[in-house]
Protein backbone atom coordinates (compact mmCIF):
# COMPACT_ATOMS: atom_id res chain seq x y z
CA UNK A 1 0.00 0.00 0.00
CA UNK A 2 2.82 2.39 0.83
CA UNK A 3 4.21 1.94 -2.71
CA UNK A 4 0.84 2.90 -4.18
CA UNK A 5 0.72 5.91 -1.87
CA UNK A 6 4.22 6.96 -2.99
CA UNK A 7 3.35 6.56 -6.67
CA UNK A 8 0.20 8.66 -6.16
CA UNK A 9 2.12 11.31 -4.22
CA UNK A 10 4.75 11.40 -7.00
CA UNK A 11 2.15 12.15 -9.69
CA UNK A 12 0.42 14.76 -7.50
CA UNK A 13 3.84 16.37 -6.97
CA UNK A 14 4.37 16.52 -10.75
CA UNK A 15 0.95 18.14 -11.25
CA UNK A 16 1.65 20.70 -8.50
CA UNK A 17 5.07 21.48 -9.99
CA UNK A 18 3.39 23.08 -13.00
CA UNK A 19 0.95 25.34 -11.11
CA UNK A 20 1.53 28.76 -9.51
CA UNK A 21 4.69 29.46 -11.53
CA UNK A 22 7.60 31.43 -10.14
CA UNK A 23 8.40 34.84 -11.66
CA UNK A 24 9.98 34.41 -15.12
CA UNK A 25 13.12 36.41 -14.34
CA UNK A 26 13.82 34.35 -11.22
CA UNK A 27 13.00 31.12 -13.03
CA UNK A 28 15.43 31.79 -15.88
CA UNK A 29 18.26 32.36 -13.37
CA UNK A 30 17.38 29.10 -11.65
CA UNK A 31 17.29 27.19 -14.94
CA UNK A 32 20.77 28.38 -15.94
CA UNK A 33 22.07 27.47 -12.49
CA UNK A 34 20.56 23.98 -12.79
CA UNK A 35 22.03 23.52 -16.28
CA UNK A 36 25.41 24.35 -14.79
CA UNK A 37 24.98 22.03 -11.78
CA UNK A 38 23.27 19.09 -13.47
CA UNK A 39 24.53 19.13 -17.06
CA UNK A 40 27.83 20.97 -17.32
CA UNK A 41 29.01 19.49 -14.03
CA UNK A 42 28.42 15.97 -15.37
CA UNK A 43 30.23 16.30 -18.69
CA UNK A 44 33.63 15.28 -17.35
CA UNK A 45 32.57 11.97 -15.83
CA UNK A 46 30.30 11.17 -18.81
CA UNK A 47 33.14 11.84 -21.27
CA UNK A 48 35.59 9.73 -19.28
CA UNK A 49 33.26 6.75 -18.88
CA UNK A 50 31.98 6.89 -22.46
CA UNK A 51 35.42 6.89 -24.03
CA UNK A 52 36.72 3.95 -22.02
CA UNK A 53 33.56 1.84 -22.06
CA UNK A 54 33.41 2.34 -25.86
CA UNK A 55 36.98 1.07 -25.97
CA UNK A 56 36.15 -1.96 -23.82
CA UNK A 57 33.15 -2.83 -26.02
CA UNK A 58 35.43 -2.85 -29.07
CA UNK A 59 38.12 -4.96 -27.37
CA UNK A 60 35.59 -7.48 -25.99
CA UNK A 61 33.98 -7.85 -29.42
CA UNK A 62 37.36 -8.25 -31.10
CA UNK A 63 38.52 -10.88 -28.60
CA UNK A 64 35.38 -12.92 -29.18
CA UNK A 65 35.73 -12.96 -32.95
CA UNK A 66 37.48 -16.31 -33.27
CA UNK A 67 35.79 -17.42 -36.46
CA UNK A 68 37.75 -16.22 -39.55
CA UNK A 69 34.47 -16.14 -41.54
CA UNK A 70 33.15 -13.28 -39.44
CA UNK A 71 34.43 -9.99 -40.82
CA UNK A 72 36.42 -7.61 -38.62
CA UNK A 73 34.01 -4.84 -39.58
CA UNK A 74 31.68 -6.39 -37.01
CA UNK A 75 33.75 -4.62 -34.32
CA UNK A 76 32.66 -1.19 -35.61
CA UNK A 77 29.10 -2.42 -36.13
CA UNK A 78 28.84 -3.90 -32.60
CA UNK A 79 30.38 -0.82 -31.02
CA UNK A 80 27.91 1.47 -32.81
CA UNK A 81 24.90 -0.63 -31.91
CA UNK A 82 25.86 -1.09 -28.25
CA UNK A 83 26.82 2.53 -27.73
CA UNK A 84 23.89 4.16 -29.50
CA UNK A 85 21.13 1.78 -28.47
CA UNK A 86 21.96 1.00 -24.86
CA UNK A 87 25.25 2.18 -23.45
CA UNK A 88 24.86 5.92 -24.00
CA UNK A 89 21.17 6.38 -23.20
CA UNK A 90 20.62 3.74 -20.52
CA UNK A 91 23.98 3.02 -18.88
CA UNK A 92 24.91 6.71 -18.68
CA UNK A 93 21.45 7.51 -17.28
CA UNK A 94 21.97 5.01 -14.47
CA UNK A 95 25.33 6.63 -13.72
CA UNK A 96 23.56 9.99 -13.75
CA UNK A 97 20.97 8.61 -11.30
CA UNK A 98 23.91 8.22 -8.94
CA UNK A 99 25.57 11.52 -9.66
CA UNK A 100 22.78 13.97 -10.51
CA UNK A 101 20.06 12.07 -8.62
CA UNK A 102 21.97 12.02 -5.34
CA UNK A 103 22.81 15.70 -5.76
CA UNK A 104 19.15 16.61 -6.31
CA UNK A 105 17.87 14.49 -3.40
CA UNK A 106 20.48 15.68 -0.95
CA UNK A 107 20.19 19.36 -1.88
CA UNK A 108 16.37 19.38 -1.67
CA UNK A 109 16.43 17.11 1.39
CA UNK A 110 18.82 19.47 3.18
CA UNK A 111 16.52 22.36 2.34
CA UNK A 112 13.65 20.37 3.91
CA UNK A 113 15.63 19.57 7.07
CA UNK A 114 16.81 23.16 7.53
CA UNK A 115 13.28 24.59 6.99
CA UNK A 116 14.28 26.39 3.79
CA UNK A 117 11.30 24.82 2.01
CA UNK A 118 9.00 26.02 4.82
CA UNK A 119 10.52 29.48 4.37
CA UNK A 120 9.56 29.44 0.68
CA UNK A 121 6.03 28.26 1.50
CA UNK A 122 5.54 30.92 4.18
CA UNK A 123 6.54 33.57 1.63
CA UNK A 124 3.73 32.30 -0.60
CA UNK A 125 6.07 30.69 -3.13
CA UNK A 126 5.11 27.36 -4.71
CA UNK A 127 8.21 25.53 -3.51
CA UNK A 128 7.62 22.61 -5.90
CA UNK A 129 7.63 24.92 -8.89
CA UNK A 130 10.58 26.89 -7.55
CA UNK A 131 12.71 23.82 -6.84
CA UNK A 132 11.68 21.15 -9.34
CA UNK A 133 10.47 22.92 -12.48
CA UNK A 134 13.93 24.45 -13.24
CA UNK A 135 15.45 20.96 -12.90
CA UNK A 136 12.96 19.50 -15.38
CA UNK A 137 13.70 22.28 -17.87
CA UNK A 138 17.46 21.98 -17.34
CA UNK A 139 17.26 18.25 -18.02
CA UNK A 140 15.84 19.00 -21.49
CA UNK A 141 19.50 19.62 -22.35
CA UNK A 142 20.36 16.10 -21.18
CA UNK A 143 20.08 14.53 -24.70
CA UNK A 144 23.12 16.65 -25.67
CA UNK A 145 25.05 14.88 -22.92
CA UNK A 146 23.96 11.56 -24.38
CA UNK A 147 24.94 12.70 -27.88
CA UNK A 148 28.41 13.50 -26.53
CA UNK A 149 28.47 10.08 -24.81
CA UNK A 150 27.58 8.40 -28.13
CA UNK A 151 30.27 10.30 -30.00
CA UNK A 152 32.99 9.67 -27.42
CA UNK A 153 31.94 6.03 -26.99
CA UNK A 154 32.46 5.42 -30.69
CA UNK A 155 35.74 7.38 -30.68
CA UNK A 156 36.87 5.21 -27.75
CA UNK A 157 35.90 2.07 -29.63
CA UNK A 158 37.73 3.28 -32.75
CA UNK A 159 40.87 4.14 -30.78
CA UNK A 160 40.94 0.80 -28.99
CA UNK A 161 40.10 -1.25 -32.07
CA UNK A 162 42.34 0.47 -34.63
CA UNK A 163 45.28 1.58 -32.50
CA UNK A 164 45.09 -1.64 -30.45
CA UNK A 165 45.63 -3.59 -33.64
CA UNK A 166 42.34 -5.49 -33.59
CA UNK A 167 41.09 -4.20 -36.94
CA UNK A 168 41.94 -1.76 -39.70
CA UNK A 169 40.69 1.80 -40.06
CA UNK A 170 38.66 0.89 -43.18
CA UNK A 171 37.10 -2.22 -41.64
CA UNK A 172 36.03 -0.34 -38.53
CA UNK A 173 34.54 2.58 -40.48
CA UNK A 174 32.75 0.26 -42.86
CA UNK A 175 31.23 -1.65 -39.89
CA UNK A 176 30.26 1.63 -38.30
CA UNK A 177 28.18 2.55 -41.36
CA UNK A 178 26.77 -0.93 -42.02
CA UNK A 179 22.98 -1.35 -41.88
CA UNK A 180 22.50 1.99 -40.15
CA UNK A 181 18.83 2.62 -39.36
CA UNK A 182 18.16 6.28 -38.51
CA UNK A 183 15.04 5.28 -36.52
CA UNK A 184 17.36 3.77 -33.92
CA UNK A 185 18.68 7.24 -33.20
CA UNK A 186 15.12 8.47 -32.74
CA UNK A 187 14.52 5.53 -30.35
CA UNK A 188 17.68 6.34 -28.38
CA UNK A 189 16.87 10.04 -28.01
CA UNK A 190 13.19 9.44 -27.33
CA UNK A 191 14.00 7.26 -24.34
CA UNK A 192 16.70 9.72 -23.29
CA UNK A 193 14.00 12.41 -22.91
CA UNK A 194 11.96 10.05 -20.73
CA UNK A 195 15.02 9.22 -18.62
CA UNK A 196 15.78 12.93 -18.26
CA UNK A 197 12.31 13.50 -16.82
CA UNK A 198 12.75 10.58 -14.40
CA UNK A 199 16.21 11.83 -13.41
CA UNK A 200 14.80 15.25 -12.53
CA UNK A 201 11.61 14.18 -10.79
CA UNK A 202 12.22 10.93 -8.83
CA UNK A 203 15.21 12.29 -6.85
CA UNK A 204 13.26 15.53 -6.30
CA UNK A 205 10.36 13.52 -4.87
CA UNK A 206 12.65 11.67 -2.44
CA UNK A 207 14.27 14.92 -1.32
CA UNK A 208 11.10 16.97 -1.05
CA UNK A 209 9.09 14.49 0.99
CA UNK A 210 11.86 13.25 3.27
CA UNK A 211 11.48 13.60 7.03
CA UNK A 212 14.15 13.60 9.70
CA UNK A 213 17.72 14.85 9.87
CA UNK A 214 21.10 14.50 8.22
CA UNK A 215 21.07 10.69 8.44
CA UNK A 216 17.74 10.55 6.61
CA UNK A 217 19.12 12.82 3.87
CA UNK A 218 21.76 10.16 3.20
CA UNK A 219 19.17 7.38 3.25
CA UNK A 220 16.90 9.34 0.92
CA UNK A 221 19.77 9.77 -1.57
CA UNK A 222 20.39 6.01 -1.62
CA UNK A 223 16.67 5.24 -1.97
CA UNK A 224 16.36 7.78 -4.74
CA UNK A 225 19.25 6.19 -6.66
CA UNK A 226 17.67 2.74 -6.36
CA UNK A 227 14.19 3.86 -7.48
CA UNK A 228 15.48 6.07 -10.29
CA UNK A 229 17.53 3.15 -11.62
CA UNK A 230 14.54 0.80 -11.35
CA UNK A 231 12.32 3.29 -13.17
CA UNK A 232 14.92 3.79 -15.93
CA UNK A 233 15.27 0.02 -16.46
CA UNK A 234 11.50 -0.46 -16.56
CA UNK A 235 10.88 2.45 -18.93
CA UNK A 236 13.75 1.23 -21.10
CA UNK A 237 12.13 -2.20 -21.34
CA UNK A 238 8.69 -0.79 -22.18
CA UNK A 239 9.97 1.69 -24.77
CA UNK A 240 12.13 -0.98 -26.39
CA UNK A 241 9.14 -3.31 -26.61
CA UNK A 242 6.95 -0.58 -28.07
CA UNK A 243 9.37 0.91 -30.56
CA UNK A 244 11.71 -1.86 -31.65
CA UNK A 245 9.95 -5.20 -31.35
Amino acid at each position, binding site marked *: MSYLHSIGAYFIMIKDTFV*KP*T*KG*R*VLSDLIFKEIDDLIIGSLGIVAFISFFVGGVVAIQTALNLNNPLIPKSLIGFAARQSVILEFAPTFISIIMAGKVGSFITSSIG*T*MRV*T*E*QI*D*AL*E*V*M*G*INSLNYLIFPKIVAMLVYPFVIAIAMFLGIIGAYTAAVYGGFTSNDAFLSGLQEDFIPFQLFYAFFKTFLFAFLLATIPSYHGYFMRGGALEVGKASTTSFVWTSVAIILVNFIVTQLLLS
Partner: protein
Amino acid sequence: MIEVKNIRKGFGDVEVLKGFSTTFKPGQTNLIIGQSGSGKTVFLKTMLGLHKPDSGQIIYNGNAYSDLNEEQQRDLREQIGMVFQGSALFDSMTVEENIAFPLKMFTKMKKKERIARANEVIQRVNLENANHKLPSEISGGMQKRVAIARAIVNNPKYLFCDEPNSGLDPNTATVIDNLIREITIEYDITTIINTHDMNSVMEIGDHIVYLQKGHLAWEGTRHEIFKTDNKDVTNFVYSSNLFKMVREAQNAK
Protein backbone atom coordinates in the same frame (compact mmCIF):
# COMPACT_ATOMS: atom_id res chain seq x y z
CA MET B 1 -4.05 42.62 14.36
CA ILE B 2 -4.56 38.87 14.37
CA GLU B 3 -7.65 37.38 16.00
CA VAL B 4 -7.79 33.69 16.79
CA LYS B 5 -11.29 32.32 17.26
CA ASN B 6 -11.95 28.94 18.83
CA ILE B 7 -9.13 27.28 16.92
CA ARG B 8 -8.93 23.48 16.78
CA LYS B 9 -6.39 21.30 15.05
CA GLY B 10 -5.69 17.59 15.30
CA PHE B 11 -3.60 14.96 13.58
CA GLY B 12 -5.36 11.60 13.34
CA ASP B 13 -6.89 10.88 16.73
CA VAL B 14 -4.72 13.38 18.57
CA GLU B 15 -6.20 16.83 19.06
CA VAL B 16 -3.29 19.27 19.45
CA LEU B 17 -5.15 22.60 19.62
CA LYS B 18 -8.29 22.15 21.69
CA GLY B 19 -10.32 25.25 20.89
CA PHE B 20 -9.22 28.62 22.25
CA SER B 21 -9.37 32.27 21.28
CA THR B 22 -7.03 35.21 21.68
CA THR B 23 -5.99 38.44 19.98
CA PHE B 24 -2.53 39.63 18.96
CA LYS B 25 -2.22 43.39 18.62
CA PRO B 26 0.21 45.37 16.44
CA GLY B 27 3.14 47.27 17.92
CA GLN B 28 3.63 44.80 20.73
CA THR B 29 5.57 41.59 21.08
CA ASN B 30 3.20 38.69 21.60
CA LEU B 31 4.81 35.60 23.10
CA ILE B 32 3.49 32.08 22.92
CA ILE B 33 5.02 30.03 25.72
CA GLY B 34 4.49 26.55 27.07
CA GLN B 35 6.20 23.25 27.64
CA SER B 36 7.36 21.04 24.80
CA GLY B 37 4.37 19.31 23.23
CA SER B 38 1.92 22.00 24.37
CA GLY B 39 1.01 22.85 20.77
CA LYS B 40 3.05 26.04 20.29
CA THR B 41 4.57 25.10 16.94
CA VAL B 42 1.30 23.69 15.59
CA PHE B 43 -0.42 26.91 16.66
CA LEU B 44 2.22 29.02 14.90
CA LYS B 45 2.07 26.92 11.72
CA THR B 46 -1.75 27.03 11.76
CA MET B 47 -1.66 30.83 11.96
CA LEU B 48 0.81 30.87 9.07
CA GLY B 49 -1.52 28.75 6.96
CA LEU B 50 0.92 25.82 6.83
CA HIS B 51 -1.70 23.73 8.70
CA LYS B 52 -5.40 24.00 7.95
CA PRO B 53 -7.42 24.29 11.18
CA ASP B 54 -10.14 21.67 11.76
CA SER B 55 -12.43 24.43 13.00
CA GLY B 56 -12.22 28.03 14.14
CA GLN B 57 -10.75 31.01 12.36
CA ILE B 58 -7.56 33.03 12.07
CA ILE B 59 -8.52 36.59 11.21
CA TYR B 60 -5.90 38.95 9.77
CA ASN B 61 -7.05 42.58 10.08
CA GLY B 62 -10.69 41.55 9.78
CA ASN B 63 -10.17 39.00 6.98
CA ALA B 64 -10.56 35.34 7.91
CA TYR B 65 -7.71 33.37 6.30
CA SER B 66 -10.03 30.49 5.42
CA ASP B 67 -12.38 32.85 3.49
CA LEU B 68 -9.59 34.15 1.25
CA ASN B 69 -9.08 32.68 -2.21
CA GLU B 70 -5.65 31.35 -3.24
CA GLU B 71 -4.51 34.66 -4.70
CA GLN B 72 -5.62 36.60 -1.62
CA GLN B 73 -3.87 34.09 0.62
CA ARG B 74 -0.73 34.55 -1.45
CA ASP B 75 -1.02 38.33 -1.14
CA LEU B 76 -1.45 37.98 2.60
CA ARG B 77 1.63 35.77 2.85
CA GLU B 78 3.66 38.49 1.18
CA GLN B 79 2.79 40.63 4.22
CA ILE B 80 4.17 38.01 6.59
CA GLY B 81 7.79 37.77 7.71
CA MET B 82 9.02 34.65 9.41
CA VAL B 83 12.15 33.96 11.44
CA PHE B 84 12.70 30.22 11.70
CA GLN B 85 14.28 28.40 14.61
CA GLY B 86 17.30 27.41 12.51
CA SER B 87 17.20 30.70 10.53
CA ALA B 88 16.36 28.79 7.29
CA LEU B 89 18.68 30.91 5.18
CA PHE B 90 19.23 29.75 1.61
CA ASP B 91 22.64 28.05 1.60
CA SER B 92 23.49 28.88 -1.97
CA MET B 93 22.85 32.62 -1.60
CA THR B 94 25.01 35.28 0.04
CA VAL B 95 23.73 37.30 2.99
CA GLU B 96 22.76 40.15 0.67
CA GLU B 97 20.99 37.81 -1.77
CA ASN B 98 19.12 36.12 1.08
CA ILE B 99 17.86 39.45 2.36
CA ALA B 100 16.94 40.75 -1.09
CA PHE B 101 15.18 37.48 -2.02
CA PRO B 102 11.61 38.54 -1.04
CA LEU B 103 12.10 41.77 -3.03
CA LYS B 104 13.22 39.78 -6.07
CA MET B 105 10.20 37.51 -5.78
CA PHE B 106 7.46 40.00 -4.99
CA THR B 107 8.42 43.45 -6.21
CA LYS B 108 9.32 45.02 -9.52
CA MET B 109 12.40 46.67 -8.02
CA LYS B 110 15.54 46.75 -10.14
CA LYS B 111 18.69 45.05 -8.89
CA LYS B 112 20.23 48.34 -7.70
CA GLU B 113 17.10 49.25 -5.76
CA ARG B 114 16.91 45.79 -4.22
CA ILE B 115 20.52 45.95 -3.07
CA ALA B 116 20.01 49.45 -1.69
CA ARG B 117 16.96 48.32 0.31
CA ALA B 118 18.78 45.18 1.49
CA ASN B 119 21.66 47.31 2.71
CA GLU B 120 19.27 49.61 4.52
CA VAL B 121 17.91 46.63 6.46
CA ILE B 122 21.40 45.20 6.96
CA GLN B 123 22.35 48.43 8.71
CA ARG B 124 19.13 48.32 10.75
CA VAL B 125 19.99 44.90 12.18
CA ASN B 126 23.62 45.92 12.73
CA LEU B 127 25.18 43.42 10.38
CA GLU B 128 28.54 44.59 9.20
CA ASN B 129 30.92 43.29 6.55
CA ALA B 130 28.85 40.22 5.85
CA ASN B 131 27.05 41.15 2.61
CA HIS B 132 28.96 38.79 0.37
CA LYS B 133 29.43 35.95 2.83
CA LEU B 134 27.49 32.70 2.66
CA PRO B 135 25.33 31.72 5.66
CA SER B 136 27.80 28.95 6.51
CA GLU B 137 30.55 31.57 6.90
CA ILE B 138 28.85 33.61 9.64
CA SER B 139 28.00 32.95 13.30
CA GLY B 140 24.64 31.77 14.66
CA GLY B 141 23.83 35.22 16.02
CA MET B 142 24.61 36.82 12.67
CA GLN B 143 22.45 34.22 10.92
CA LYS B 144 19.55 35.22 13.18
CA ARG B 145 20.08 38.87 12.23
CA VAL B 146 20.08 37.94 8.54
CA ALA B 147 16.85 35.98 9.10
CA ILE B 148 15.28 39.00 10.81
CA ALA B 149 16.50 41.29 8.03
CA ARG B 150 15.02 38.97 5.39
CA ALA B 151 11.74 38.85 7.32
CA ILE B 152 11.35 42.62 7.49
CA VAL B 153 12.85 43.69 4.15
CA ASN B 154 9.48 43.75 2.39
CA ASN B 155 7.83 45.78 5.18
CA PRO B 156 5.62 43.01 6.55
CA LYS B 157 2.57 43.70 8.70
CA TYR B 158 3.07 40.47 10.63
CA LEU B 159 6.27 38.96 11.98
CA PHE B 160 6.41 35.39 13.26
CA CYS B 161 9.45 34.07 15.11
CA ASP B 162 9.92 30.43 16.06
CA GLU B 163 12.35 30.11 18.98
CA PRO B 164 14.51 33.03 17.76
CA ASN B 165 16.95 32.55 20.65
CA SER B 166 17.58 28.86 20.40
CA GLY B 167 21.27 28.01 20.23
CA LEU B 168 22.42 31.54 21.12
CA ASP B 169 24.43 32.64 24.12
CA PRO B 170 22.53 34.79 26.69
CA ASN B 171 24.09 38.07 25.52
CA THR B 172 23.32 37.50 21.85
CA ALA B 173 19.85 36.24 22.77
CA THR B 174 19.13 39.51 24.58
CA VAL B 175 20.40 41.52 21.62
CA ILE B 176 18.13 39.57 19.25
CA ASP B 177 15.14 39.97 21.62
CA ASN B 178 15.66 43.72 21.82
CA LEU B 179 16.12 43.97 18.07
CA ILE B 180 12.79 42.22 17.47
CA ARG B 181 11.07 44.48 19.99
CA GLU B 182 12.52 47.66 18.47
CA ILE B 183 11.51 46.61 14.98
CA THR B 184 8.01 45.72 16.19
CA ILE B 185 7.49 49.18 17.65
CA GLU B 186 9.28 51.03 14.83
CA TYR B 187 7.27 49.44 12.01
CA ASP B 188 4.08 48.83 14.05
CA ILE B 189 4.16 45.12 13.22
CA THR B 190 2.07 42.41 14.83
CA THR B 191 4.85 40.21 16.16
CA ILE B 192 4.27 36.71 17.46
CA ILE B 193 7.15 34.83 19.05
CA ASN B 194 7.14 31.18 19.93
CA THR B 195 9.54 30.63 22.82
CA HIS B 196 10.25 28.85 26.06
CA ASP B 197 13.03 31.22 27.02
CA MET B 198 12.08 32.97 30.28
CA ASN B 199 14.63 35.71 29.63
CA SER B 200 12.64 36.64 26.51
CA VAL B 201 9.47 36.66 28.58
CA MET B 202 11.06 39.11 31.01
CA GLU B 203 12.65 41.27 28.30
CA ILE B 204 9.95 41.65 25.68
CA GLY B 205 6.72 39.91 26.75
CA ASP B 206 4.13 42.63 26.12
CA HIS B 207 1.43 40.00 25.72
CA ILE B 208 2.03 36.40 26.75
CA VAL B 209 -0.09 33.40 25.88
CA TYR B 210 0.60 30.26 27.90
CA LEU B 211 -0.43 27.03 26.21
CA GLN B 212 -0.85 23.77 28.05
CA LYS B 213 -1.83 20.52 26.36
CA GLY B 214 -3.52 22.42 23.56
CA HIS B 215 -5.49 24.76 25.83
CA LEU B 216 -4.87 28.44 26.45
CA ALA B 217 -4.18 28.16 30.17
CA TRP B 218 -3.27 31.78 30.87
CA GLU B 219 -2.59 35.12 29.17
CA GLY B 220 -1.25 38.42 30.41
CA THR B 221 1.84 40.64 30.44
CA ARG B 222 5.41 40.01 31.64
CA HIS B 223 4.61 41.92 34.82
CA GLU B 224 1.55 39.82 35.54
CA ILE B 225 3.19 36.45 34.88
CA PHE B 226 5.25 36.61 38.08
CA LYS B 227 2.17 37.44 40.17
CA THR B 228 -0.28 34.93 38.79
CA ASP B 229 -1.89 32.26 40.97
CA ASN B 230 -2.11 29.85 38.06
CA LYS B 231 -0.08 26.89 39.30
CA ASP B 232 0.82 25.59 35.85
CA VAL B 233 2.23 28.96 34.83
CA THR B 234 4.07 29.32 38.14
CA ASN B 235 5.58 25.85 37.76
CA PHE B 236 6.69 26.71 34.21
CA VAL B 237 8.16 30.09 35.18
CA TYR B 238 9.98 28.79 38.23
CA SER B 239 11.24 25.63 36.59
CA SER B 240 14.39 27.66 35.90
CA ASN B 241 16.85 27.46 38.80
CA LEU B 242 17.72 31.11 38.34
CA PHE B 243 14.14 32.25 38.80
CA LYS B 244 13.71 29.81 41.69
CA MET B 245 16.69 31.38 43.45
CA VAL B 246 15.37 34.91 42.84
CA ARG B 247 12.01 33.92 44.30
CA GLU B 248 13.63 32.30 47.32
CA ALA B 249 15.76 35.41 47.89
CA GLN B 250 12.66 37.61 47.68
CA ASN B 251 10.78 35.37 50.10
CA ALA B 252 13.72 35.45 52.52
CA LYS B 253 13.54 39.25 52.62
